[in-house]
Structures are given as C-alpha cells and as structure tokens.
C-alpha cells in the first residue's frame, strides 16, 4: 500500500465516531491535567493506561495522542493568568505572560500562546513525517551494541538535562534499573530479587509503578500541603475579542514562531533533554535576536516572549516521537509512559514499527495534529473557566485522582498487590520529590533497563563475550563518544564551578 492510501485509511479510521469520541476525551483530559500544576501529561497518561487496555490499538493511540497534544497548550493559561505554570515547560511563558495579564492583556497573551502552540505542534509533526523515511534507514544501521550504548546515553543525557541534580538523577535512574531487574530473567530463567513472593515473579508491573511514582506521589504532596493548588493570584478577566486578536500574532511574528518550533523539534528529538530546556532556549534566542531597543521589554510583557516558548513547547512532541518510535528510546517521562502503551498494545518500537505498524503511526500523526488544533480552539474559548480549576480544593481533587489511580492499578490484572505496589511507589516517589530528586529518570530506567539487558546479552553473544565489539562499528563509536562527552560535560561543570566558587569565597 502506498503512503497516500495509508494516510487515507488512517484518516477514515480517525473519523469513526468512537475514534472521534476518544480523541475529544483525550483532549479534554489533557487540558484539565495540563492546567493543574503538578499533574501534567505524564500523570494523565499513566492514569489512562489501564482504561486503554480494553480498546483497540488505534483507539488507545488516539486517546493518548489527544492527551499528549493538549497538555502543553492549557498549561500556558495558568502561567499567564496566575503566574503558575501548568506544566514545567510553561515556566518560560510566565516571564512575559503574567506581566501581560497584569497590564490587562491576558486575552492577547492567551490567544497568542494557544495559536503558537497549535502552529508549533503542526510544525513538529511535519518534522516527524519528514523523518519517517530517514529514520528507517538510520535504525537499520543499529545493532545490539548500538542499542545497548543508546540506552546508557538515554539515561545519562536525561540526568544531564537536570543540571545540578545530575547525581540525584543518576541515583533515581539506578533505583529504576534495580526495580526493573526484579523477577524472571528472559534468558537464564532465574527469578531475581523476588524475596519468595509469587507476585514478584513477573517483576514490578510498569503501570502500577508509573501510577504510583507520578499520580499517587503528587496526591500525597497535595494532601500534605492542603488547600487548593493556586492559593490566590490575580484572576485577570479574559476578553474574547482580545483573544482573537492574539491569535493573529504568531503569524505576524512568523519568524519567531518558526524559530521556536525548530528549536522545540530539534531539542525534543534529543533523548532526555525535554520541553523545559526547549522552551527556555526558544525564549533566550527570542531575546537575543530582538532589536537592542526591544530587549528591555522582555520580562515586562513582550508578546514574543509568549509566542517563542509556546511554539517550542508543542513542537517538541513531534520531535520526541522520533527516538521513541524509531529506537524505542523515550525522550521524556511522558514518552516513556506512551512507550508502555505501545508495548501493551502489541507494537514493538524500533525498526519494525515503521514497517509493520505504519498505519498506526499515521493515525498517531493525524490524531496529534487534530488534537493540537482542537486543544488550541478549546483553550481560546474557555481559558478563563480553565484557570478556575486550579482553585479546586485538595479534599475534592485528591480522592478523585487517587480513586482513578488505585482502580487503574487494580484493573490491569485484577490484582490487589498492584494497588499496594502503586501506594508503595507513591511514597517512594513522594520522598524523592520532597528531597529534590528528579523523578524523570525512574520511568526511563524502567523502560530502558529491559532493552539494555537484552541488547547487552545479544552484544555478548555476537562478540563472543568480549566488549570489544562496542568499538568495532562507527555508529557505536559515535554513541560512545557522546556518552563520554556527557560525562566530561558534567565533570567540567562540577569541577570548574566548584573551583570558581571556592576561589570566589576565599
């Protein structure tokens, strides 16, 4: 079947009533979770996994695409109105969005942010489409040694993206790897670290672990904090006329939108770097490329300071899907959860997905585009009401989310110990969160460790037990050089910053 026929089939699948229902449901859930600071796309996806089990693969992918495409869009609303970013990457939007709201231009900022998000999302997906034929060729160059090194690079680069928390992130990553080792070993048949519990023979299940680590831990935090997510803030009125005027601005400043989208796509395609880095990079570049006279207006309510990070934030989704689909290496916690959805529905990310499940890939692409447009439209129309969600009291929010979290853990296998596991991982996730340990490495380690172990075994087989094979092929040498580069970058920062700081103190 040629590509056009596949696209036509995917489009007609998407237009089926149930598919459209799941798409709209995904967008609404994504918007709600995006607008609530602390919850975000990862939590939403983790909570939805168990409910997706009974669906067809395409419906599940459509639901997830709806969530992923809409979460970053609504996160901008609270960033602009309440100075509280809904998701971490929206933090860059607060810099100019909130000052604009204080000047009575909240509608303008929300309109511009929503439209920039929509355009950025579409540009990111165009990048993904352009990459499909190329990635197939690249992936076929990769063998077990490359995949083994790539998993190590994924974990290290994720940790590196946390900046000063590199070591803490590695601790969480190592914890995730140890957790993933529990249970039956696929080659030797040994049952590892089960402690005599039959439940652990299959290891810790991905879904309860994810739900616990993200959703339950956030609920414990909210429970301990009490009150609502937003305690106060200026609830600026949103004028619809202003919003519509704002929608035009990303097109007026098209170079800013394009540049932001390009940064988002490029950074999103790098495993582990994430949307926050992309958004701040886009913002910084927007400031740097502004006329000297205009630079002082950034931070005081410049609309370009809203457009650049929002375009970048949504464009990263298309970029992040490239390593996730092509290599099975998720670029972020959200993609790690999405990867588990693919696996649960029988799709194996990597070289085969581009050939065997290309129809699903096109459904994903189209669903992401439609969801992005839908999310922008809903946000434009309902921004003011959305912001009110952050004033919901914890005594309402916690039990509702917790109920979904626990039943989600249970319903996957009708296993009560999965609920206990989710609660246990919730407590561990909460402790890590409170101590300032970045949690992003945990899901990545959980997903990457089995790939790492499989490719290590295959590498040893190919190399007759010698690790020399890791340095025999060009792709593996390049990846190895990247790993060394990441470690040197950390050590340089660690040693250099310390010596500068100590000399400054003395």
């Amino acid at each position, binding site marked *: 079947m040629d590509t056009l026929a596949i696209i036509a089939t995917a489009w007609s699948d998407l237009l089926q009533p149930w598919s459209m229902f799941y798409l709209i449901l995904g967008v609404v859930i994504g918007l709600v979770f995006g607008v609530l600071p602390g919850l975000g796309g990862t939590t939403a996806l983790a909570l939805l996994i168990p409910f997706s089990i009974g669906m067809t693969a395409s419906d599940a992918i459509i639901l997830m695409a709806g969530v992923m495409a809409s979460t970053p869009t609504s996160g901008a609303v609270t960033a602009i109105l309440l100075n509280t970013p809904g998701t971490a990457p929206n933090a860059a939007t607060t810099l100019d969005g909130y000052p604009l709201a204080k000047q009575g231009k909240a509608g303008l900022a929300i309109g511009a942010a929503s439209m920039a998000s929509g355009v950025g999302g579409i540009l990111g997906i165009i990048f993904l489409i352009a990459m499909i034929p190329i990635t197939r060729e690249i992936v076929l160059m990769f063998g077990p040694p490359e995949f083994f090194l790539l998993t190590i690079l994924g974990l290290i680069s994720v940790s590196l993206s946390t900046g000063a928390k590199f070591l803490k992130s590695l*601790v969480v990553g190592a914890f995730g*790897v140890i957790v993933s080792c529990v249970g039956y070993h696929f080659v030797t048949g*040994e049952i*590892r*670290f089960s402690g005599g519990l039959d439940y652990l023979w299959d290891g810790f299940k991905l879904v309860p672990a994810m739900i616990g680590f993200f959703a339950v831990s956030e609920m414990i935090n909210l429970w301990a904090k009490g009150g609502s997510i937003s305690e106060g803030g200026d609830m600026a009125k949103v004028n619809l006329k202003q919003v519509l005027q704002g929608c035009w601005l990303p097109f007026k400043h098209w170079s800013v939108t394009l540049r932001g989208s390009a940064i988002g796509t490029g950074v999103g395609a790098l495993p582990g770097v994430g949307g926050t880095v992309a958004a701040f990079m886009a913002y910084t570049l927007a400031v740097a490329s502004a006329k000297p006279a205009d630079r002082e207006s950034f931070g005081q309510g410049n609309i370009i300071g809203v457009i650049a990070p929002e375009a970048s934030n949504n464009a990263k989704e298309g970029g992040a899907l490239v390593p996730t689909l092509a290599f099975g290496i998720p670029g972020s916690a959200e993609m790690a959860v999405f990867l588990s959805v693919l696996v649960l529905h029988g799709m194996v990310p990597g070289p085969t997905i581009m050939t065997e499940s290309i129809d699903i890939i096109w459904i994903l692409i189209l669903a992401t585009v439609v969801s992005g447009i839908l999310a922008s439209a809903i946000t434009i129309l309902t921004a003011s009401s959305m912001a009110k969600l952050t004033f919901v009291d914890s005594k309402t929010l916690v039990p509702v989310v917790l*109920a*979904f979290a*626990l039943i989600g853990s249970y319903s996957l296998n009708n296993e009560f110990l999965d609920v206990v596991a989710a609660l246990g991982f919730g407590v561990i996730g909460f402790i890590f969160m409170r101590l300032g340990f970045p949690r992003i490495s945990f899901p990545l380690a959980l997903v990457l460790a089995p790939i790492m172990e499989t490719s290590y075994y295959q590498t040893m087989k190919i190399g007759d037990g010698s690790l020399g094979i890791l340095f025999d092929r060009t792709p593996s040498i390049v990846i190895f050089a990247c790993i060394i580069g990441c470690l040197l970058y950390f050590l340089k920062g660690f040693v250099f910053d310390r010596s500068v700081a100590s000399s400054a103190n003395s």
Partner: protein
Amino acid sequence: MEQKSRFDGFTITMLAMLALAGLTIYFGMDYKPISRFLPIAASILMIVCVLWLMYDRAKGGDAGEKSLSGEGDDIPATQIWQSIFWISIFAAIAFFLGFIVGSGIYTFFSLYVWGKRSIRHALAISGGLAISIYVLFNMLLGKTLYNGVLFDLLMG
C-alpha cells in the same frame, strides 16, 4: 564552612539507598553472570552517586540541603509522614469498601443486565471505590458527605 550532619530525611533516604544497593549486590552474586550484570552495575553506580552526594553535603554543598521537612515551603515533617500514613490507611480501607460495593454492583448488573465483561467489572469497582474514597476523605477532614462537599454542591 558549616558542617552538616543532621540525621534527617535526606540522610535516612541515602542510607536506605545504600542498603538497597548492598542487598542487591549480596543477592545478585548468586545469579549467573548474564543476569547479575545489570543489577550489580546499577548498584555500584548508586553507591558511588550516594556517597558523592553525602560527601558533597558534608562539605557544605547543596546536594542534600533539602530535607523532608521542606523544599521551598514550610510543611512540617510530621505532617508529611502523617499524610503518608493516613493516605495509605484510608486508601486501603476505601479500596476494600469500593471492591465490595463495586463487586455488588457488578454482580447485580452482570446477572440481570450486562454480559460478563472485565472492563465493566473494573468500571463498577471504580465507581464504588471513588465513592468510598470520597466519603472517607471527607470524614477524615471532619466533614461528612452530607454537610460537606455534597452540601456545597447543592447549595452553591
């Protein structure tokens, strides 16, 4: 520079991580080389990072500045541990109540209305669970469903 030697949440967590890594190595040595490689490598990495973090903190670095009693806010540690305790207890009770209520709903409907489908089982239990958790949380906060949230909803 001020020496930090508090036996607080950070130190306890780091010691727990060291213990986990130690136990992983201890038990991992029993397995065949191919199955012990990854857990032992991860444990060694964990030990190195944890010791580095603890050393950094002892030297006055910012690695372990934050304790369980607050990361930029002032929630007392006791309140946090109480929250973890109560959320676990109430979630467990609510889950069993929800299971009983939901199973009752499921049994009734599967006998008289539905066919036997596991997703409906899950949905029925989730309904029961959601109600149970909601009621219990409201009771925990000193409010009943009647004079608490439901009343607020009804009376605006």
